[in-house]
């Protein structure tokens, strides 16, 4: 049924439809509305047989979620920014223990300096933690990807993080189709854990692994992630069959067939990029867009196939690896080596800086390998001058 909802409400409703047995909540902007709304749904008994656990920190939130999932219960939590950093040890444990939990990350910048607005720095801090990481473009896709996330996680025995742009999506009201409980039940069957902690049948998980085996453990985790590529694609196809809506999958292409320049991006900025491309193409340009939905595992082969015919690939991303540059950009450079002649990087929207059509159009006209979208050179020059004058004394 169609609703006009805040992104956070849509995500909470989608999570509730997946019937988790445990939701662990600790507030941090911009994720808080999601767990608040889940609390309301449990209070209203729209979600039942579910423990809502308030904890004192993010470290506790991930730990409780790990414990609950290890005890055989479908489990969920959410966080953002510094919260994810605080739970990072647990993030690695969850994937190492092969626990199929789902977490929403309300993407937000990382301090210092403190900044509550949206970018992808938090997600990038755990890109090698062994979780599957999915980036929705709209709130419809954010809701849909949560339903898919539980299915992917439980099929693979691997945790899934749905990375939703903070504020831009979490706090935006838009039209969302929330499916019926029957349809979701049919798509996502009752959770049957493959193993669980049970006093009647004792077992140990997370024991120390010596050098003789550790390499194999990591190799298997790598193989599992690569194998997930097929599962993610299949779950997206199954979702389409069931719900008649294209959400998820590995990547999506937009007007790429005849494109000379293809823009690659993740998350909510794709809408603005597509509008920009439509306006440019109406003037005779040939731009296309590729959306990366599955960031982990990285769909290198699918991207290579989608981008092979492009003369120029431009990666627009809301993250920066200080000292090296764009992260998605660097990850694409190798797969596209000797295939695409030119690849360039646009770092955009850090700390919530607006990304507009006019800024994108201007940047696309520049022949630069690396652009910081909307960077104010005066502010940069002033700061450099200030630092110089301080140091000289």
């Amino acid at each position, binding site marked *: 049924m*169609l609703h*006009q909802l*805040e992104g956070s409400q849509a995500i909470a409703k989608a999570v509730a439809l997946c019937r988790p047995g445990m939701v662990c909540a600790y507030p941090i*902007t*911009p994720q808080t509305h999601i767990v608040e709304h889940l609390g309301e749904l449990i209070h209203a008994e729209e979600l039942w047989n579910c423990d809502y656990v308030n904890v004192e920190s993010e470290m506790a939130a991930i730990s409780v979620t790990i414990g609950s999932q290890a005890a055989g219960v479908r489990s969920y939590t959410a966080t953002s920014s510094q919260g994810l950093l605080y739970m990072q040890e647990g993030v690695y444990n969850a994937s190492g223990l092969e626990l199929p939990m789902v977490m929403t990350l309300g993407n937000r910048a990382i301090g210092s300096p403190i900044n*509550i*607005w*949206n970018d992808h720095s938090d997600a990038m801090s755990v890109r090698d933690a062994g979780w599957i990481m999915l980036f929705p473009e709209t709130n419809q896709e954010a809701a849909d990807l949560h339903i898919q996330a539980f299915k992917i996680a439980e099929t693979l025995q691997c945790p899934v993080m749905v990375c939703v742009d903070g*504020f*831009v999506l979490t*706090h*935006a*009201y*838009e*039209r969302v189709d929330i499916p019926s409980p029957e349809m979701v039940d049919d798509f996502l069957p009752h959770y049957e854990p493959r193993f669980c902690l049970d006093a009647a049948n004792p077992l140990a998980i997370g024991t120390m692994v010596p050098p003789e085996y550790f390499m194999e453990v990591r190799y298997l985790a790598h193989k599992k992630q690569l194998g997930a590529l097929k599962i993610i694609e299949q779950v997206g196809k199954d979702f389409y069959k069931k719900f008649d809506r294209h959400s998820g999958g590995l990547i999506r292409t937009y007007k790429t067939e005849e494109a000379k320049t293809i823009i690659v991006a993740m998350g*909510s*900025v*794709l*809408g*603005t990029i*597509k*509008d920009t491309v439509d306006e440019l193409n109406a003037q005779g340009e040939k731009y296309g867009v590729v959306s990366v939905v599955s960031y982990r595992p990285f769909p290198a082969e699918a991207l290579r196939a989608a981008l092979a015919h492009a003369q120029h690939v431009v990666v627009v991303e809301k993250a920066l690896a200080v000292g090296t540059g764009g992260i998605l950009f660097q990850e694409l450079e190798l797969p596209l080596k000797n295939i695409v002649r030119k690849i360039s990087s646009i770092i955009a929207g850090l700390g*919530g800086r*607006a*990304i*507009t*059509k006019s800024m994108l159009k201007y940047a696309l006209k520049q022949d630069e390998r690396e652009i910081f979208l909307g960077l104010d050179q005066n502010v940069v020059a002033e700061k450099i001058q200030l630092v110089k004058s301080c140091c000289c004394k």
Partner: protein
Amino acid sequence: MFQVRIHGRGGQGVVTAAEMLSIAAFLEGKHAQAFPSFGSERMGAPVVSFCRISNREIRLREPVQEPNAVIIQDRTVIGPARAFQGIVSGGYALINSPEAEYEDQGRDDITMKCVGATEIALEHIGKPLPNAILLGSFAALTKIIQLDSVLEAIKTKFSGAIAEKNSVAAKIAYDRLA
């Protein structure tokens, strides 16, 4: 696409106004997108929210820079927030003020109207909350949405007597400009 920017101060329901406007448009079968100026909501601080209304899916997520209409819930933010900036020719400005007590903007290509929404609010709601009331005037001024949709949207955000009082007040504000 019809783009709206709402200016006011934290505590006046600036963000809720954009959300209600989007719900009203949704109820009429339109696509609508409402979002705040991202995290700047503090009591008393200047706050901006946005709403886009269209017959097609809305993909654009940049802040509204060229609004078809602005709603100004607190006229003291007009100068500091440059509240009239970018209004398209033929657009509208709806100002919460009992009379035209604001600096002349030198724009004769837009329709400016004042409604004393705070006074209506104090009389009918008992609190100086102008947000839902101004949506009533907005419906009369722009004809982009129907008053009935606004009243329906108010019910999704407020309940009981508060919803009723806001509806009565919004209707009065509608009649002022109808």
